């Protein structure tokens, strides 16, 4: 949320573009807060759309979960499973790919720019 600016406001968003899979309840709460403050939500990239590669740990057999991994899972609020964005909140559009497909992103962006009357339909 603060990658580019220290001072941000989450209120009254037209479109929220969200990347990343959901690894914990605190992340789930954050995207629910964004959903509540945005008219539309677009999932960006494979992590948000498919959960991969973070969902790898959902398939770990118990033998693969060593002491170090168990320490992290128990020491912080890791969710039982990693989830895709649309498993946690309603998603209006998806831009797939890793990295995201640029033409698909531009098409989606233009759709919303037209929808909100910022650019006219070409």
């Amino acid at each position: 949320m603060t990658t580019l600016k220290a001072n941000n406001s989450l209120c009254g968003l037209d479109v929220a573009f969200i990347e990343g899979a959901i690894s914990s309840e605190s992340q789930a709460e954050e995207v629910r807060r964004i959903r509540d403050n945005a008219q539309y939500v677009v999932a960006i990239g494979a992590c948000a759309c498919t959960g991969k590669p973070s969902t790898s740990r959902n398939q770990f057999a118990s033998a693969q979960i060593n002491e170090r991994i168990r320490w992290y899972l128990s020491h912080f609020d890791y969710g039982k499973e990693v989830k895709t964005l649309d498993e946690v909140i309603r998603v209006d559009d998806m831009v797939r790919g890793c990295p995201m497909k640029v033409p698909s992103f531009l098409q989606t962006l233009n759709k919303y720019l037209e929808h909100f009357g910022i650019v006219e339909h070409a």
Partner: protein
Amino acid sequence: MPDRNIVIDTIAKIEGNAALKVVIEDDVVRDLQFIVSDYRRFFATAVRGRRVVAVPSFLSRICGTCSVAHLFASLMAVESAQGITVTEQTKALRRLAYDGLMIRDHALHLYFFVLPDILGVDSILDVSDDPEDLGHTLLHDSFDIKRIGTDITNAVIGAAIHAPWPTVGGFLRSPDPATFPDLVARLEAVRQKVLRGIDTFLGWGASLVRNTDYLGLRNDRRFDFLEGDVVNSNRRRIPQSEFKNYLQYVQIPHSHAEGYRFSDTEEDYLVGALARMNLNRDLLHPRTKDDAASSLSAFPSNNVYHNNLAQAIEILQCVDDAIDILRTLELADEKPVRAQAQAGTGVGLIEAPRGLLYHMAKIDEDGVIDAYDVIVPTAQNQINIENDLKDYFNENLDEDEETLRADAESIVRAYDPCMSCATNFLKIDLIRK
């Protein structure tokens, strides 16, 4: 001065999420925690049981910013384990693509994250629209610098992020040499802009000086990010394959990232552009040495803010190195070097933009990953960052809270930490009691 807690929940303008919590009692910092708050994805576990040929491309997904670094370190670990020696052409093309990565990655950090501190604005979105304004000029310089870095990687490895052409043993596809003359012309044109950036970071008076050890790769033949032995400030020299034996793993109870100590020194250590400039500036390209001479006289330096200046100089180094390669490389039609699957262990140790990056692959006789390990620069810098911040807070406790918060964030930002890599890391909590 009253006791207090200072908390910065989310440190702004860095790659990913991290927090800082500081507890001040009786005018002394009692506790300071640099907290990496991104979640781990356990990549090293996820690759166990996979066939090696698919592993480097999967592991490039550790980071969108420096994916080329993870890709190359993984390729080199696998090749070493399989006894594969790549051709001189593959080495030259990897070096060229890596110059492109460094130019783009350093420019993103320096101009999008650090420049607002120098200009006294919150973000690049607040930089003046006046074409006569220096900030406006520098920001537009950065667009050209970033673009040429991206375009080099596009031309040489097929993309800037998660590049498709590099593979175990070489390249699936060779670049089109017809694209080279235009790249050379644009690199020559961008040099003046890179030099304006170097002057800007040299002119910034910010300072935090503390003794520490510096670790980096050194190839005695040239300034190199991909080949060499590890050296430290005492010129102790360690072959790549033995590097991990010198590291002591430190579990950080408050952080999703681990920390490391280097057993050859009593001190903490720093990796990244500042370490490289302190250890290897004698090896820079002659044109870089000539044109950045006044900035180079600032090194060796113990001022952590000079990591920014060192990155700016490295952009010029990569521009000059890329021009040489593009002008002299004659491409032959080569296929990737492959070998019969064999059991073995290999290490790929390279300089990522943020410092030493270690990949270790243990492979079984069927060419399947048995064990994998990744050690990233930000985890190695975690202890050094905390020690720098402790010194800063202890020496500046009389400053108002706004100054303390802003300076703490600038110090962290100077390291160019990457949480995606490290969680594979900042909120700030300042607590005065």
